């Protein structure tokens, strides 16, 4: 066997090991481990906190074994790679072990508030500190080696194992949603089979793993099979298949709230509101390329205008019906869009962002202020907004009984407006207006010289974005029955932006998916609510580094954003530590 490990490899190992160690310490210090050390994933076997900790050396080991770009290292054989993984894991584990040792001796809780005795108990596995150090180091090394092993395994096994593990994790994560729902629907037998003490039962976890692994194995051939069948079919059949698929999707979306229960319907309503916001901001950011960080201002204006016009308790007290007030609100929205857009026309990207952020904050402070309280209600807001939609539906149609309440009813108007917005946005993007926006984004002065009035089109984008945002605000006000300035802070703007970034700027399906993932998931995974913003921030950074074009990118963007990469790849230092990007 050739030399065991070169100096260069050792340096790599050291770096990756250090990063992994920092990650482990971070997980502990920020409180994630402590919060989830008792949350069962597979009851009696492993908890979420442990999963988080074990995942780090696993991934690090995988990374360590990944061949870097120089040819010499390509020839590393499997045992050497496993060794690399092992070393990385050992380093990470050792650092954590030492930390546990120190923390057990000195009380660090004055500074690091999350390092509580139960956490230390958990980390040291109940062993005395010296042994704990060895144990943690050993476990780290083991996971690192496993990670490397995963890398050197044939692709099919690797995919199967990964998929199986993800399936298990997924099933255990949705427990807070699935179990109550199953019990509501009287499927207690299933729920008992699957879950025990909030975690999966051992049998269920094995089942999930197998299903996940099998799915991974069958995925590629299955995909190919479907594609081949569809392509072999005549055009007529293909069109019919597409039609039926879309119809099925539409039906699924329509009956969703009835099937999933009130809580999920409530989540769906929130997702819908944000989706509407995102579709609007997508026009401003995605199509016209204007980074607006103060989008929440439109949301607020829409909500407050609606409140002022429709609530009998407001300072205006005219109590208009919702659909009469709506056109007025949208008109006001358009004007607000123009007012905010006009001064910022000439500003470049980052400045535009900051100014709009400033506008957003000014709006919030004004809504909250005592000075404007006589009109806007100050901190207490405006109450008593009537809803034009029925609060509950209780119908008997022949043999079927349709019963829906609250969010399950509200879901439909929101869904309708989202669909409308999506269709309108799609038509816009494929028209001469969309082309003009694209051109403006590419090269503003050339677009102007080619005949695109950049002023008009920027204003149009702002106005349309504002109208959509205000619409969402109006629906929000009606749904809640009241408006409080506290709901309209900068985080809303940032969240909507994150939805667009995650989903894909300028891509309607992307934005829809982004809303579902970024809004829906945190609501569903309520246990993580404290870390939601942390994850948002991390996701934003990760997305920009790895996949700036989003989950479902707009066609041109992917090429646009990755072209820069392939030139860059030669210039990046320390290629090993930088995430590997696939060439354009």
């Amino acid at each position: 066997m050739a030399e065991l490990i070169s100096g260069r490899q050792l340096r790599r190992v050291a770096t990756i090991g250090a990063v992994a160690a920092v990650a482990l310490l971070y997980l502990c210090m920020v409180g994630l481990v402590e919060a989830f050390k008792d949350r069962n994933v597979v009851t009696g076997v492993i908890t979420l906190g442990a999963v988080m900790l074990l995942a780090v050396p696993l991934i690090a080991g995988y990374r360590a074994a990944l061949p870097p770009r120089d040819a010499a290292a390509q020839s590393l054989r499997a045992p050497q790679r496993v060794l690399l993984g092992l070393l990385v894991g050992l380093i990470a584990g050792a650092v954590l072990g030492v930390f546990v040792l120190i923390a057990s001796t000195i009380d660090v809780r004055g500074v690091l508030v999350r390092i509580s005795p139960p956490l230390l108990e958990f980390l040291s596995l109940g062993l005395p500190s010296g042994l704990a150090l060895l144990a943690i180091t050993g476990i780290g090394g083991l996971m690192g080696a496993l990670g490397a092993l995963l890398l050197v395994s044939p692709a099919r096994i690797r995919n199967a194992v990964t998929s199986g593990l993800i399936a298990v994790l997924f099933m255990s994560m949705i427990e807070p949603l699935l179990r109550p729902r199953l019990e509501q629907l009287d499927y207690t037998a299933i729920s008992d089979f699957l879950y025990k003490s909030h975690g999966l039962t051992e049998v269920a976890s094995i089942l999930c793993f197998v299903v996940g692994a099998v799915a991974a194995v069958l995925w590629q051939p299955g995909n190919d099979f479907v594609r081949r069948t569809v392509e072999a079919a005549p055009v007529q059949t293909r069109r019919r298949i597409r039609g039926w698929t879309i119809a099925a999707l539409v039906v699924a979306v329509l009956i969703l709230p009835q099937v999933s229960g009130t809580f999920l319907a409530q989540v769906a309503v929130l997702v819908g509101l944000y989706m509407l916001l995102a579709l609007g901001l997508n026009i401003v950011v995605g199509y016209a390329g204007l980074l607006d960080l103060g989008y929440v201002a439109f949301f607020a204006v829409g909500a407050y205008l609606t409140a002022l016009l429709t609530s009998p308790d407001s300072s205006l007290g005219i109590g208009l019906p919702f659909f009469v007030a709506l056109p007025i609100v949208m008109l006001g929205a358009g004007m607000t869009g123009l007012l905010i857009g006009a001064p910022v026309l000439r500003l470049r990207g980052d400045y535009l962002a900051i100014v709009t952020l400033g506008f957003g904050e000014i709006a919030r402070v004004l809504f909250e202020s005592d000075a404007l309280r006589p009109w806007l209600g100050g901190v207490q807001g405006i109450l008593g907004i009537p809803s034009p939609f029925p609060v509950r539906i209780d119908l008997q149609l022949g043999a079927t009984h349709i019963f829906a309440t609250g969010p399950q009813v509200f879901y439909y108007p929101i869904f309708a407006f989202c669909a409308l917005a999506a269709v309108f946005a799609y038509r816009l993007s494929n028209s001469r207006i969309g082309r003009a926006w694209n051109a403006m984004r590419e090269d503003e002065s050339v677009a102007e010289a080619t005949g695109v009035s950049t002023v008009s089109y920027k204003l149009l984008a702002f106005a349309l974005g504002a109208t959509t945002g205000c619409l969402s605000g109006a629906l929000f006000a009606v749904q809640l029955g009241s408006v409080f300035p506290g709901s309209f802070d900068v985080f809303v703007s940032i969240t909507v932006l994150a939805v667009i970034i995650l989903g894909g700027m300028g891509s309607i399906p992307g934005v829809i998916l982004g809303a579902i993932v970024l809004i829906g998931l945190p609501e569903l995974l309520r246990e993580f609510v404290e870390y939601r913003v942390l994850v948002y921030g991390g996701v934003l950074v990760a997305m920009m580094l790895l996949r700036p074009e989003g989950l479902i990118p707009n066609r041109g963007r992917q090429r646009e954003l990755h072209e820069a990469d392939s030139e860059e790849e030669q210039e990046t230092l320390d290629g090993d530590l930088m995430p590997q990007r696939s060439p354009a």
Partner: protein
Amino acid sequence: MSPLTTPPGAAPMSDVILNVHHLTKRFEGLVANREIDFEIPRHAIVSMIGPNGAGKTTFFNQLTGIIEPTSGTIEFDGTSLIGLAPHEVAELGIARTYQNIRLFANMTVLANVMVGRHVRMKAQWYEAVLGLPHVAREEAAVEQRSFELLDLVGLPRRYADDLAKNLPYGHQRRLELARALASDPKLLLLDEPTAGMNPGETRQMTDLIARLRRELELAILLIEHDMKVVMGVSERITVLDYGERIAEGTPEEIRTNPRVIEAYLGKQATV
């Protein structure tokens, strides 16, 4: 080809499409254009030459409205261009290409051309949003026309869905031309269209320029350094040096003009 309609009450159609009088542009101490007088007869090909830094591109930029002149007048087909925004200038019928190619790099070839047609299209945003049938009809017609333009400039149709930045250099230049032609301009400004080309490509471009003028009946103003092109295709030549017009005339006159030769032609006078 767009009809050259004269608004009621306006002066009758003259034989000069562009009339520039005493155009001056000063940039904080540097006089880029000094009192330039310039004319382009309708349907003519005119070249503007001069050493680097003579002020040719600045001149172009004032014509298209990107920068405002310090003083002087510009009259295009009876309308003053002073103070107009670039898109208004485009609407009046002036289109241009650029010295360093400035395509919409991440848009498709077809989309680039269709954007060129933007000024002549009528669809409004609300019409597009409502999906009105005439919008779709207009789009189809413009797409058709764009393909025809690609044919005209010699860009094979199979490139239509490629991203503009992926085209080979020569094709990119043609695309820029197609985009400029898409708005049915009355005056086409070409800023060094043969820069970076070898003799074969240059010949093709020269032929194309001549053909364009013939088939589309437009006026062309050319900035060029390649004397073969200038002498071969121009009807009249204007020479700038240090921001001033130092000569104007037919190719023969310019070739033998001592001031011009002194300015920079030198040995190339024997071209």
